[in-house]
Every structure is written in C-alpha cells, then in structure tokens.
C-alpha cells in the first residue's frame, strides 16, 4: 500500500526552488514600486507643505482683516462718533480744516440711501378666511 504512493516528498522538497523560480519573474516589480514610492513621497511632502502654507496664509489674512475691521469700526461704535484726532493731528490742522472735515463726516452720515427705518416688510393680509368661505 505504501509502494503505490508515487509521490516522493523528498523530491518535492528538492524541486521547491524550481517553483520559486517560476514565480520569481514577479520580483523585479519591487524596485519599480520603490522608485514610484520615492517619486510620490516628495509630491506628498509638497502637498503637506502647500496645505500648511495655505492654512497659515488664510489665518494671517483673517487676523489682518479682523484687525483692520475692528480698527475701522472702533471709533464709530461710540455712537457720538466723531473720530477724536490725535494731539499731533489737532496741532497741524486749522480750525477751518477741522470744520470742513466734520461737515464731510456729517454728509456721509446723511446719505439718504442709508435710511434703516423702512416700513416693515410683513404679511398685512393675514387671514384664515371667514366662516362663509
């Protein structure tokens, strides 16, 4: 019964390298992949750098914008509104210049297109209908 077994495991072990050789043509792909990975790696790094740079620029723009806006609106938010000139500026301006600048500010505030009290936009025909409907 044992003789009928024609498969010799020792032989098979000896032939193992041959099988390996058959499958070995796939191995040369490894350096190509490595090469591609090496090519992709700088691109990825570059991408990261660009993202970080974009975020930094964006945040810087926002900070600058908010500083500018708060600086521009700060003097106005007091309501009574005339921007108080610095002592140096007051020294260099004549009374006539000051008066003219005040007039210009007053004119800007008097822009008729900036009237905020327009008649409220509401539904003036609200009705459920009469019982006759």
């Amino acid at each position, binding site marked *: 019964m044992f003789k009928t077994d024609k498969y010799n495991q020792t032989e098979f072990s000896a032939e193992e390298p041959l099988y390996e050789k058959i499958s070995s043509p796939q191995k040369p792909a490894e350096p190509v992949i490595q090469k591609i990975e090496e090519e992709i790696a700088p*691109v990825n790094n570059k*991408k990261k750098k660009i993202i970080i740079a974009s975020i930094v620029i964006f945040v810087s723009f926002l900070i600058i*914008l*908010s500083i500018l806006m708060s600086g521009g609106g700060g003097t106005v938010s007091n309501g009574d509104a005339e921007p108080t000139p610095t002592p140096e500026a007051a020294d260099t301006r004549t009374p006539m210049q000051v008066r*003219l600048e005040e007039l210009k500010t007053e*004119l800007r*505030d008097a822009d008729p297109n900036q009237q905020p009290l327009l*008649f409220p936009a509401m539904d003036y025909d*609200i009705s459920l209908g009469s019982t006759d409907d």
Partner: protein
Amino acid sequence: MKRLHLFEAVNLQINKSHLIRSVLVVFSLVALVVGGVVFAQDKASETIFLKRFKTEESKRLIELYQANFEKYKTSERDFYLAKAQYEQLYTLASLESAVVSTRQVMEDRANVLIVYEELLAASLVDTTGAELSMKQETLAKLQKQIGELKAHKEVIAAAHDRAAVYRAGIDFSLLVPELSATAYETLSQIVIADIQRVYDKTVTYYADLKQAQSEMETSPLKAEERKRAYGETDALMASIGENLDLIRSSITAKNQRLDHSSYTEIVRSLSSSHAQLSQAMDFLNELERDGRVEAQ
C-alpha cells in the same frame, strides 16, 4: 505596459495634488471675500443704527423693534403651517390651532408696528432741520396711529372665534395704507432734514471762508483766479439750495398719500443733492487749501 500604468498613477497623484492646492486657494479666497463682505456689511449696518439712534430711548426702541420683528417672523411661520394643516385636515382641532396662531401672528404684527411708530416719532423728534409745523403734524398722526394699533390689539385679544378674528383682520387692513403713508411721510422729513442741515452748515462755512480770505492780501492775478472759483462754487451752492426747496415743496404740497414709490423718488432726488454737496465740499477744500498756502 505596467510601468506606463504606474507613471500614469504618478501623474494622477500630481494632478490630484494640483487640484487640492487649487481648491484650497479658491476656498481661502472665497472664504476671505465672503467673510470680509459679511463682516463689513454687519459693521456698516451696525454703524448706521448707532449713528441714527443717538438717544437712550431710541436705542432701547430699536432693540425692542428688532426683538419684536423676530418674534413676528416665528409666529408668521407657525401661522402658515397651522393654516396649511387646517386646509389639509379640515378638523376642529386643526381649526382651533389655526385660529390661535392667527390671533398670535396678528398680535405680534401689531406689536412690531407700535414700536416702529414709536421709533419713527423718536427719530423725528431727534431730527434737527425739519420744518416745525410739519414735524408737529406728523408726530400727532403717529400718536393717533399708535392709539389705533393698541385698540386693534385689544380687539384681537377679545376675538375668540374664527369670525371675530376675521373681522379684526379686515379692520386692520383698512388701517395699513394710512400707517404706511405716515411712515413714509416721516422718513421723507427725516432724510430731507438731514441733507438740509448739512447744506445750511456748508453755507455758513463758505461765508466764513470768504470772509477770512477777503482779509488776506493777495496779488491781482490770484484775486481774479479766486473770483472765478467763487463764481463756480456760488453757482453750485445755489443749485443745491434750489433742488432742496423743490424736494421740500414736493412733500408739503402733496395732497395724496406718500407711498414707497414716492419716497423712493424723493430719495433719488436727494441723492443727487447729496452728490452735489459732496462736490461743493471738494471745491471748499481746494479754496481753503489755496488760502492756507497763500498765507504761509
């Protein structure tokens, strides 16, 4: 062949990174512009409110007006929903809900209008430069209408069924044209007075400037040049004065009610005077600078 595919993959990766970079840049720019515009608009509208409403009373009223308007918007939405539900279901329960929400929205609308009229009255009182008799007449109208709106609120509170709410709605619709006309009449007076006040101050300033410059010694050539400049400025100031007279007479002479379109027309004419006045101030700026340089 495989190599070709891999290089295509690399190209794809590079294109992808370009795409991400472009999207980031575009997103940043759009966010920056939109954020800036919204922020500037908020600031601008806040500025307008603060400039217009200087007294404590008017500041309190504008805050109350905004709060009431928001409340109205909520109840208006609830009303539309309840009405749609009633029209779909046609049940007693949905009718009850619709009647309740109709009463609520009508009450909130009246509250908005009451505070609005109070705010108009406060703004007109604060406005200097408006014609006194017209101002008093308009203030009396506003007070009368505030009384009518309060009475309307009491009618709504007493209306418990659909028919009564319907009648309250009909009565209110008769009030609206008068409310709107008085509002635009008040607004017209305020915007005209604002420009008129600046014009009057500019006339005074110009006279003072002329007086100061007449006392300065100057060469005949310079005097001739200044005379021509005065001529141009005089003509411009006279034109602004005439336009303002015309605009003012257009609201005093009108027997018909003012509405949104006639108010828009007044604002359009005033914008032209506003631009002329700005031009006049540029002229005055030049004259003042020339005088200053000459004096040095």
